[in-house]
């Protein structure tokens, strides 16, 4: 997992609530047995017509959004299926951070395990960001994980919450597995006393 400390990038405004993981990557793209190439299926039904032509009115197809690394969207982002493919699709496409008023629980966990930084902000702040980026898509936003801030070009700063353990994992680019393995003794002790 790539460490992430600070990100200075342009953003894509996706003005939609309850963006579920079936929208992020439809089930028909889950047939792979590896993680590679998932970005091709990202927001597929919103990005392409049934003939496979890009839909010009979908924001990701706007050339001005090319190269943006931050996604801004509405509340309850990542609801539904537990498919980690949704996170792989976002990161494979090139996103490194998602800013919304709130994330679904399983998606939140999956994201942080793949180095995708999630910054929950109050809904007013998110709406303001959406307005700003829609008005000027070249707006550059700075997300600083160490300081837990999202900073706009005019210096305006918004604080976001992340628990200290997850923050450390992201900053150092480490996942849970090594930590879990270090608890082998405690696990064996639990197994000796558990009724199951």
């Amino acid at each position, binding site marked *: 997992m790539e460490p992430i400390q600070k990100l200075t990038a342009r953003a894509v405004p996706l003005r939609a609530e309850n963006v579920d993981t079936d929208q992020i990557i439809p089930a028909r793209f889950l047939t792979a047995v590896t993680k590679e190439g998932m970005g091709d299926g990202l927001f597929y039904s919103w990005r392409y017509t049934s003939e496979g032509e890009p839909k010009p009115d979908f924001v990701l197809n706007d050339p001005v959004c090319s190269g943006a690394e931050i996604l801004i969207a509405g509340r309850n982002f990542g609801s539904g299926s537990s498919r980690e493919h949704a996170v792989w699709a976002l990161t494979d496409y090139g996103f490194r951070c998602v800013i919304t008023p709130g994330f679904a629980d*399983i998606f939140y966990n999956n994201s942080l395990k793949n180095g995708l930084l999630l910054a929950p902000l109050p809904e007013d702040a998110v709406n303001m960001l959406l307005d700003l980026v829609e008005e000027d898509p070249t707006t550059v936003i700075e997300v600083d994980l160490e300081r837990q801030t999202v900073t706009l070009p005019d210096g305006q700063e918004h604080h976001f919450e992340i628990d200290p353990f997850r923050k450390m994992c992201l900053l150092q680019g480490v996942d849970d597995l090594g930590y879990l393995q270090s608890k082998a003794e405690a696990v064996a002790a639990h197994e000796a006393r558990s*009724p199951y």
Partner: protein
Amino acid sequence: MGKTLFEKVWDAHVVAQDPGAPAVLYIDAHLIHEVTSPQAFGMLRERGLKAYRPERTFATMDHAIPTRSLDIALWPSDAATQVRTLRQNCEDFGITLWDIEGDVQGIVHVVGPEMGVTQPGMTIVCGDSHTSTHGAFGALAFGIGTSEVAHVLATQCLLQHKPKTFAINVDGELGFGVTAKDVILAIIAKNGAAGGTGYVFEYRGSAIRKMSMANRMTICNMSIEGGARAGMIAPDETTFEYIKGRPYAPKGEEWDRAVAYWRTLVSDAGATFDRELTLDGAKLEPMVTYGTNPGQGVPVTGCIPMPDDLDDAAQRRSLFSALEYMGLKPGQPMEGQPIDIVFIGSCTNGRIEDLREAAKLVQGKRVADSVQALVVPGSKAVKAQAEKEGLDRIFSEAGFEWRGAGCSMCLAMNEDKAGAGKYVASTSNRNFQGRQGPGARSLLMSPIMAAAAAVNGRVVDVRDMLN
């Protein structure tokens, strides 16, 4: 102060808790399937790891497999590859596999309970969000991502933050024609699709206590649609009776010891919950969803909300985008909405009890000419039992297709897809855009409501047919 059911199960599974870190939670049972496991085995291979407790993981095939043919040679190559990959992984890592070629196979959340793997007080996880189903037994059960599947395989543990508790009380007697599906759709309509985020639900009250295990599983299954990763129901005699004698259930003295422990798995009288919600079961009606998240539902006698009925701009925007996709209008009544396809099945409503109720309704009737209808049993055992009872004939004679066990049109990973623009009366759990096929429009409802829609070719109030 007493403890809630959730707190009892949680506390009994915390292996370690470092300051500032999430809890290390021990996982008693791990279920896997062909779609979300291959990359997890890949992660183990990359690091040269074995499965730590392979006997605690159980695999089956459900998501991508076709439901028309068991002959893998006839399948699309990607589904066949996933199934072959799962076989190889189970062989290499020593994991029990309920294969499509054996007698035990089906949707993972139907098969686990059938086999007696699911027991009260356990922690149960699976790379599937509907793992919440198993909470019906008083287990703490939730969906996980593929990285976490690898963590469980390698260590039998997960790092988890302790969720908050949320009591959902349903008292009163459910009316005629009102089912468990209607109860959970009503709960989500009231509390919202994200209302349970960060919480574990505990369903309580006389209406829940009276329910069969099948109905309790329907309720807990859709906890995730209300935002909660898990939903639980305290085990009781109904639970014990269901489990007794199943292949993995405790036997003899072990059974007695287990039941004595399971009886302690109730929220204490003095326990407090972080949030509570109460519904009067007697006031509930059959429910139908009109939108593109499971919280967008109304009683069948009701109408689609007007924008002014909603609290804020985000909800209104959500309504407009849902109705644009669904081709429906604000204020439109649900009754009379034409239906093109009827899907009876899924981990929500693919159990024998669901099929019995639906069959009773369609017996001697015909599926409307304009409707394609299919019944997909939740497991091979459900299918065999239904065939023993003659339900397959009732469905076939009425014009339903009778299929093999699997997830099928619930998520449209196999060839069972609804066409663009088609209206699907579905007993499944998600009405997301394109969930049942690109452009398909899902209306979630109970098995008897779906059966009634099949016969009439439109949404009707099933109570009018039952009278």
